[in-house]
């Protein structure tokens, strides 16, 4: 007797743990930031969960989405980074890492990593670079980007405040911001505070990382916990 019905799934291999990520490239620096809230539905799982991951001295990735996939992706890339370093005697460049991330994501095109990433760092010339991704590896280099729950709220602010050239111009122009590090940092803090007000998945804390020729500098501030 053949089954005449399909049993409906009772569990999903995915869930959205929320969070927002931002990355902004300047002339000679890059800022990568993300909130620290981990959510599940209307619950907060923890207020102190980092979404940032250092891949090398010149590349930091921020990811939101399904935490288990994010962590696996981080481990995957970290292993590849280490292998590259031991094989070539030097760390992977940020643009190289950017391509690797894209390929890694597309490799699982038919069972995706539910992970929304921004990669920020310094390119081979020491200029700030930001790469933005979707869940299956579509990516582009850009001057600034945001992914995750609060992306729709934050992106318009960045478009408005960063004084970058419009990405719609043709021939295309550099969209890295001409602002100083301090000015860009203030904008990052303001945008997260704003997103926190209107978005339930964003809040609790903000981790900011600044990458420049002096290395990587980390900062943490509190965000509203409601």
């Amino acid at each position: 007797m053949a089954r005449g019905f399909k049993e409906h799934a009772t569990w999903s291999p995915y869930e959205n743990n929320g969070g927002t990520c931002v990355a902004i490239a300047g002339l000679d620096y890059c800022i990568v930031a993300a909130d620290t809230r981990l959510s599940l539905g209307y619950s907060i799982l923890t207020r102190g969960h980092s979404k940032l991951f250092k891949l090398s001295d010149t590349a930091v990735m921020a990811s939101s989405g399904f935490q288990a996939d994010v962590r696996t992706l981080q481990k995957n890339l970290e292993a590849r980074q280490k292998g590259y370093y031991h094989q070539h005697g030097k760390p992977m460049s940020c643009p190289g890492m950017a391509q690797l991330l894209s390929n890694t994501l597309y490799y699982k095109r038919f069972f995706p990593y539910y992970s929304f990433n921004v990669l920020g760092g310094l390119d081979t010339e020491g200029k700030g670079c930001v790469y933005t991704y979707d869940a299956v590896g579509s990516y582009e280099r850009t001057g600034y980007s945001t992914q995750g729950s609060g992306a729709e709220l934050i992106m318009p602010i960045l478009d408005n405040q960063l004084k970058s050239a419009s990405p719609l111009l043709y021939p295309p122009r550099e969209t890295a911001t001409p602002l100083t590090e301090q000015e860009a940092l203030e904008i990052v803090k303001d945008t997260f505070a704003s997103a926190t007000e209107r978005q339930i998945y964003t809040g609790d804390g903000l981790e900011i990382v600044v990458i420049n020729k002096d290395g990587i500098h980390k900062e943490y501030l509190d965000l509203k916990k409601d």
Partner: protein
Amino acid sequence: MEHTIEAFKREESLGARHSGAAAASDGKIHIERTQYPYVTGSSVLGIKYKDGILLAADMAASYGSTKRYKSFQRLKPVGKHAVIGASGEMSDFQQISTMLDELTLRDQMWDDSNTLGPHEIHSYLNRIMYQRRNKFDPLWNNIILGGVKNGKKYLGVVSMIGVHFEDDHVATGFGQHLARPELRKQWRADMTLEEGVRLLEKCLLVLYYRDRSSINKYQIAKVTEEGVTISSPFAIETNWELEAFQNPTKNAEGSW
């Protein structure tokens, strides 16, 4: 192949729920991998305190709405430095216990006086849960792992699809909704053992009042640098004369 036979047997014994592996139109046997939990444990709570970690869970394992087992130990030591507590499908928890015993045994067999710390065990557990999720055959558990090694306290959770994190206080199931707010309000890093136990008991009581699959029989596990101890079962005094329980429909006539 073995997996298929296991799934087949599982389906067979559940009678009414599944019609068993049936031959479909193409002649092949189709085994569903999606699972349902059958014998389940309810909440587990965990907190860090001054000297280490405290975990708490009741001793009930339910079969749907029947409280089938009332002396089920849902807290288990892992090696010398850690303890795990699980909610969800208890047979999967037993399998995880076996895996962790194997892990710690093999580690011990190296005989190099190095032991697996709670962080390492949690990492192993995370990978197991995630890998089973990838195969669409999850271990249906929400697991708390706590431990102390070299003075460092560790408290982590992992869910059935591999989501994991650490915190100063954690809870699974109903505990996430009923206990966590109380823990967020009352928890301090420098709590003594007595204060920690009192806080947990307060949360367990709320769970007993409001979670219908809980029973008033608990164990508390303590992990410190010295090692792991799991208490003998105890009960908490209840008060059903609380004002909030009197005349519950006073402000909502017609409800129950």
